[in-house]
Every structure is written in C-alpha cells, then in structure tokens.
C-alpha cells in the first residue's frame, strides 16, 4: 500500500507558497494604500501616488501655484496617454483664468469648487476620492488635478490615446461591401456599430475584466430582438471570469464557450462592423474587447462560419452558388486526402479504369508508402502556409514561389512524390482557403490529418466511421444553447433559405429560428419588385 501510494498517490500539498515576511508586508501595505481615501495634504497625496506607481518613467507631475493665494496644486498624468497641449490648456486655465475670477482670499475648497464649476466647461469632470479609482483612471489616460487642502482629485477626463486609423481589415476582405474594420479602441468600435444601428434599443453593457489589465469588455445586443435568456447567460458567463489579464478577445472566448475541448469555434470573431451589425440584427450578442479589433459574436452555427459578408451584398443567385461552393470545398478539404489514401491503398477497384491506370503509373518509383507521401506533403504545405503568414508580405510571396514551384516540381522530378499527391494537396489547400473563417479552416486542416490516418487504417470504412463521429460531435455541440449544426441537424428547412441558398432580401421574411430571437419577422412580405404595369410597358415598345 505504501509503495502504491508512493508510485501513484497524489503528492502531498506543499502548503502555501512561502513569501518572505517583507514581501507580505509590502503587498498588504500597497493594498491598504489603494483603499485609503485622499487626504487634504497635497504632498502626502502625491507621495502616495508616486509610491504606488513606483517612480515609473512615464509618470509626470506638474506643480503650480494657482490663484491669488498661490494655492499649491499639481497636474498628474501618465505621459504618452495624454496630449501635451491639453495639459498646457489646463494649466493655463488654472493659472491664468483663475486670476480673472472674483476670488477674494478664497479657501482652498471654495477655490477648487469654483475652478470645477466655472473654468473647465470643456472637460468631462469627475471627482475622485480614493487612490484605487485614481490609479485606475490615471492608467486609462485621464488627467488629474490635485490641490493642497482638498481631499479630492479632479478628473479632467480622457481624450483617447493614439490609435490606428480605421482601415480595411486585411484578413476579411470583400469584393463588395464596406471597407471599414474595427480598431483596437473599444469606443471607436462601438461607435462603428452605433452608426449602423441607430435604434435606442441597441444596448451596450460594460464589464471590466482582468485584475491587472482592467480591460473593458462590452456586451452589445438589440433589446427586444435578443432573447433575455441569452443575454442573461452571456452576462453570467462574463461575470464569472476571474483572470489577471485580458489581452485579446480569445481570452474571453475560451472562458465562455460551451465545449472547451472541441476544435470547432463556437463564437464567431470578426473585424467587420457590418458582420457584427448583421449578427445583432439576427438577435445575437456581440462581445467587444478593448485592445483588439476582433469582436465576438454568439450564438453561431457551423454554416454561418462558412458565409462571407459578400453573400448578402452580391446578387442572390451568385451568392447561392458561391456559398455551396464553399460548403463543398470545406468538406473536400477535410475528406479528400484521406479518401485518396483509402482508395489508393485499399480500394484499388473503385476508380474508373483509365483513372486507376494513370494513378498507378504516377506512383511508379515513389519510395514512400502512400500515407507517408501524403502526410509529408501535407505537413510541408502546413509549414509553408505558416511561414507565409509570419513573414513580411514581400517575402511571403517568395515563400509561396519556393513552395509551389520549386519544391513541388523538384519533388516530382526527383521521383520523391507522385504528381497525383501534389494535385491532391494543392486542391485541399485551395479548398481550405475558401473557408472565410480562419479558425474553422484550421479546424478542417486538423481533421484532415485524422482522416488520413483513418483512411490508411481501414480504408473507406475508416473514412465513414470518422465522418459519423464528426457528425455526432457536431450534432452534440451547442453554442450558447443553440444547436451548432442547425439548420441541418436538427433540420429546420425554413432556415435553409439562408444556408444553401441566399434568398433575395425581399424574400428573407424571417430571422433564423432557434437562435431564440423574440421577434422573428424581419420585413413585411410581398415586396418583390415588379415592373411597372402592363399598359405603360406597351407604349415603350419599339418606338
């Protein structure tokens, strides 16, 4: 038993991590400081702040003496988060304009009140009285004004730090559609949505996530369209998050998704405001994260990940064709190499004769077994793809030339790979690139390896069993309570109008079922455009 314990038993917990007494003290001291209120003594206040920020290089204090009484005061900012001229403006107001006021030996409190009420109308003023709030706002780029003898700090608001200009998202380009993309600033992002959906029903709830990063996370939805249950669920899942930092929406995503172990994305993420707006209008919830242009949309299903914004802007028939092409391509990208291996290794008799002879001829002299050949080529391709992404664009194209032209050609010439396999790998690659959602495309590429293995083990039976497992998995997945494989399984034939085809806008009468939308009606029926009445038409004939 003892040996058993030693071999397999859990190690005894080592007890709490021992910190030095000094460290402990420092931490608790800091916490204490954060929770204390500001005192009336300017120097003491400033010292505390300097202490808390630990003399950071960007921490700046501008001292001044204001008013007739030469009241000492200071502007505290973090450099770089605030424009220099706005600091100067505040100083000018406090120093120069205050002289114009009728101030007769005002007490510091009264002086402060006057400045607050009358001199700074252009600023978004707030009073802070704890160091906790003070530090947080300082970090967010607020300007703080402190006076001696006043136990409050005057927050002069934030003007927004420098951020990237709105430009076209490079990962989600469209042929037709708006060229705007989200940026790293959350307010810009929500404004992009506000500008598209002007109803007051667009509600945006704010959360602050990350104990250290204090990242702002917003949840947007259209009140009245979205089901309350969904909103409550998302809210509770967001509130449950306890993490030190949120640097990208991916952190949030992994905390709130339904099935953490699947390779399928259960939240859509996009850089495109039009896509988010469309999602909101279908009764979905969008989650904005400060510091990243990627916005999450939920709930979604697999087929929505295979749709591109173009589908809704292009002509309906074209969109329908392209959509089906994409769905087909997705499955091709998963199944093709595996099926090739299965057929060539196990079911030599299944091909039309001419094709079979050709493939047999191309295999002649290739030193690897088919599986190894396919695996090697697929892996090579994966490496090429990854290298192409990481490299600067100019070199990236060079990589593709090396990969496609030189490597492929040389492999065939040297007899190391058969042309058939190169074709298979190429088709698979092209097919997987047609998937608009990058994460879904990559999931397909992972599955591809699984299917190659299955195909190489028991042939087409393996492919079929794998396919069934995949279907079981997809059918059991849920995205915030909505079945992931809807409207195929469960079958909602009415929603097929927006999956396999994209019906004309005048025919898209309903919002998708099963999302839980409260209001299914999208538009009034009978709006199909018709030509002018017949008699008028006759007049124009062949004049």
């Amino acid at each position, binding site marked *: 038993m003892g040996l058993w314990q030693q071999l397999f038993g859990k190690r005894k917990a080592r007890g709490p991590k021992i910190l030095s007494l000094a460290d402990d003290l420092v931490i608790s001291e800091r916490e204490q400081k954060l929770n204390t209120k500001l005192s009336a003594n300017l120097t003491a206040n400033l010292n505390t702040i300097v202490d808390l920020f630990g003399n950071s290089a960007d921490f700046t204090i501008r001292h001044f003496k204001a008013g007739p009484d030469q009241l000492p005061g200071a502007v505290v900012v973090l450099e770089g988060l605030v424009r220099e001229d706005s600091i100067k403006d505040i100083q000018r107001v406090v120093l120069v304009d205050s002289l114009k006021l009728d101030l007769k030996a005002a007490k510091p409190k009264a002086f402060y009140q006057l400045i607050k009420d009358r001199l700074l109308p252009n600023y978004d003023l707030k009073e802070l009285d704890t160091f906790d709030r003070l530090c947080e706002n300082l970090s967010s780029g607020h300007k703080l004004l402190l006076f001696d003898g006043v136990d409050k700090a005057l927050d002069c608001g934030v003007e927004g730090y420098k951020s990237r200009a709105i430009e076209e998202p490079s990962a989600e380009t469209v042929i037709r559609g708006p060229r705007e993309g989200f940026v790293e600033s959350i307010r810009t992002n929500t404004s992009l949505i506000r500008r598209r959906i002007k109803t007051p029903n667009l509600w945006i709830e704010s959360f602050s996530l990350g104990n250290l990063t204090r990242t702002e996370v917003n949840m947007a939805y259209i009140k009245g369209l979205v089901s309350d249950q969904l909103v409550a669920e998302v809210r509770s899942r967001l509130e449950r998050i306890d993490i030190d930092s949120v640097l990208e929406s991916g952190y949030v995503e992994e905390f709130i998704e339904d099935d953490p172990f699947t390779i399928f994305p259960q939240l859509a993420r996009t850089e495109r405001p039009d896509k988010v707006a469309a999602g909101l209008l279908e009764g979905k919830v969008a989650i904005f994260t400060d510091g990243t242009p990627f916005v999450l949309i939920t709930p979604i299903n697999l087929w929505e990940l295979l749709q591109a914004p173009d589908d809704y802007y292009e002509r309906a028939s074209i969109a329908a064709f392209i959509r089906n092409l994409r769905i087909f391509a997705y499955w091709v990208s998963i199944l093709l190499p595996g099926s090739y291996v299965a057929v060539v290794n196990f079911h030599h008799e299944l091909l039309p004769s001419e094709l079979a002879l050709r493939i047999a001829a191309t295999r002649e002299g290739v030193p690897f077994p088919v599986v190894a050949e396919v695996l090697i080529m697929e892996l090579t391709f994966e490496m090429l793809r990854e290298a192409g992404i990481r490299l600067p664009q100019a070199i990236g194209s060079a990589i593709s030339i090396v990969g496609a032209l030189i490597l492929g050609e040389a492999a065939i010439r040297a007899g190391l790979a058969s042309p058939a396999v190169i074709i298979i790998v190429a088709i698979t690659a092209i097919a997987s690139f047609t998937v608009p959602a990058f994460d879904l495309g990559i999931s397909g590429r992972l599955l591809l390896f699984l299917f190659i293995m299955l195909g190489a083990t028991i042939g087409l039976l393996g492919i079929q069993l794998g396919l069934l497992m995949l279907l079981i998995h997809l*059918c059991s997945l849920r995205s915030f309570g909505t079945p992931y494989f809807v409207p195929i*399984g469960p079958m909602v034939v009415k929603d097929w109008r927006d999956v396999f085809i994209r019906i004309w806008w005048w025919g898209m009468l309903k919002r998708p079922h099963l999302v839980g939308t409260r209001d299914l009606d999208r538009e009034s029926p009978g709006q199909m455009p018709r030509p002018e009445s017949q008699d008028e038409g006759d007049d124009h004939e062949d004049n």
Partner: protein
Amino acid sequence: MKITKIANRQLLFILFMMRTTVTIAFLPVLTSADAAQDAWVAALFTFLGSAVIVILVAALGAKYPKQTIVEYSTALVSTWPGKVVSAVVLWALFTIAATDVRIYGEVLVTGFLVQTPLAVIIGGMVFVAAVAAWQGIEVIARVADTLFPLFVLMLVLSLGMVVPLVEIRNLQPVMARGLLPVVRGSITPTAIAAQMLVLTMLIPAVTEPNRALATALWALAGSSLVLVVVAVVTVGILGPEQASRSVFPFYVLTRSIEVTEFVQRIEVLPMFAWGFGLFIGIATLIYSLAYGLAQVLGLADYRPLVFPLAALQTTFSVQAYKDVFELLRFFKPRVVGPYILAWFILSLFPLWAAHFIRTVWGSRRQGGSDGQGRVWGQILAVFSFASYRPLCDYQHRLLGSA
C-alpha cells in the same frame, strides 16, 4: 431519467433509414425465398404485413404516450410478467442490432476488406453507434436529420444511374407460379419489421406521441416504395436468377454495371448509404436497449450501460453466426418466421390482451378493481403463449419446404 424529446419528423427519418438499410443490404424479398421476378409483388405484400406489425407496436405505445414498454407492461400485467415482456423486447432489439451489423460486416469482408477481421469492422461500427447512443436520442435524431438527405441522395443517384439498364423482359412472366412464392418471399422482410419494436422505447421521447403511429406508417410506406423500386431495378438488370443467387443483390448490381466508361464501379454510393443507415439503426437500437435495460433494472441513468452493451453486442454479433451460410439460413422464412413470431407472442400479444380486457372491464363497471383485469390479462397471456405452437405449424404448412 431525463427525458429528451425528438420531433416526429426525426422519428420518421430514423425508422425510414433503419428499414431501407435492410433493403440495400440483402433485399430479403428476393434472396430469402423463391419469389424471383415477382419480388416486387412480394415487396407490396411486405408493406401490408409490416403495417400490421407497426400498428401492433405503435398503437399500444400511443395509448401510453408517456411510458416505455417497460413501464406500461408492468402496469398492464403486473411486475414479473411485465419484466418478462420487457426482457423479450430487449432481447429482440439486441438480436436485431447484432444481425444487422453482422450483415454489414459480411459484405465488407466479402467485397472490400478481405483480410480485415470481422470483429474490427463490427466493433468499429458498434463503437461509433454507442458513442451516439451515449450522447442520447436527441443527438441520434439530429444525425439522422443530417444523414437523411444524403442517404436519399445516394439512393436516388445509385438507382437513377442504373435505371436505363433495366430490361422489362427480365420481370416477365408476372405471377406465373401463383401466389405462394410471393407470400413466401414476403415473410422474412415482414418478420424483419420487428425492428419497429424500437418504437416501444421511443414513443415517450417523441413530441407528439399520438401521431407516432402515423409517423411509423409513413416511414414504412417510404421504405416500401424504395423496396419496390430496388426490387424492380435489381431484377430488371441482373435477371431474376442471378439476383436471387447473390448474397447481396443490390451491391452486386452496382458493382457489375457500366453506364459509361467513366460512370462505373459506383458501389461506393450504396455502401456509404448502407453504412449511414446502419449507423442510425444500430445507434437507435443500442440507445433503446440501454434505456430499457436501465428501466428494468431501476437505474437512474442509462449511460453506464451503453458501452458494456456495445461490447456485448460486438461479441454476440461475431459469435452468433458461425459463417455467412448460417446467417443466410437464419433468414430463411422457415427459421426467422416462427422465431420472430415468438417475440410478438411473448411480448405484444399478452399486452394487447391485457389492455383489451382492461378497457372492457373498465367500461363495464366503473371503478372496478384493476386486479381482476390483471388476472384476466394473465390468463389471456398464457393463452397466447399456448397458441404459439399451432401458429408455427400453420406457418410451416404454408411455407412447404421453403
């Protein structure tokens, strides 16, 4: 146990695929007896026979829309006889699943994976089905939703491509040998309609249990249509003699035709359709089996039973039939008819009797004790057990030496 609901449409798909899979598999109207070119007439007879079975199964279930057979059999014929009835139904489900998957394994071993051990093929299929069963009937139903269009598409494609090759003269002469061969041909496929016993477990899971009978009948009608078409096409192309001699006629058909130089060797289509349909069938059967067994044993959850049952299923499937000949012999009407008749005599007949008596008793004197009805039910049940032997004899006489 948590009750999950499936739509009637999903039930329809499940039943349709279960039933049609048998058609693709070995076309029993043709291979089990000597119906030969009249197989399609036998298919029509099969529809009638199966409809009777479906009504027997579903109508009773619809009267107890919230209960499985395990529950209402206890209510109808007291605890222990009720458990016997449930055990028979469960045994039936178990056997059907094992046999279904065995046929599939046989065709793969014959035609595709010659060296691969049967146990691997069967084990793989059963394992995947068990995973689905573990996820619950809702997931099975969704997969059925997904596979149904594919299934139909594959059938239509494989049938549509070969239809031009049908020679009507292969179907002549029609009914030249009288009715008997046709009846003989329809017995086995009718007996296989015992698959519909899954309804006894599924009806409480359906959203509209009252319409379950109609659903099942529609599924039956659809699959019978496929059966007729496949019978006509197979005989019309292969000829009655060659088709009857084949172990797996539809598979033989699809592998032995060449529509054009490029459209040949299309047996993958029916094989995949078969695999899909079989999967749905097995998953549903394993689910029903585990669910029912859990109820009989009084367990809170059926899930722990799924994988042990799947393992048992695999072993049974491999071991129950020594070889393909034994499997085929099992499907001779002389063997399979009485066997499956026994299932019904031991399960549904007594329940119907008890139900009937109960309603008669109940209407005659209101508030009369259940006990008396139950006693009568048991007497009738014994009576119907006793009727088994004569019924079998009659069947044998009908079959002659087939």
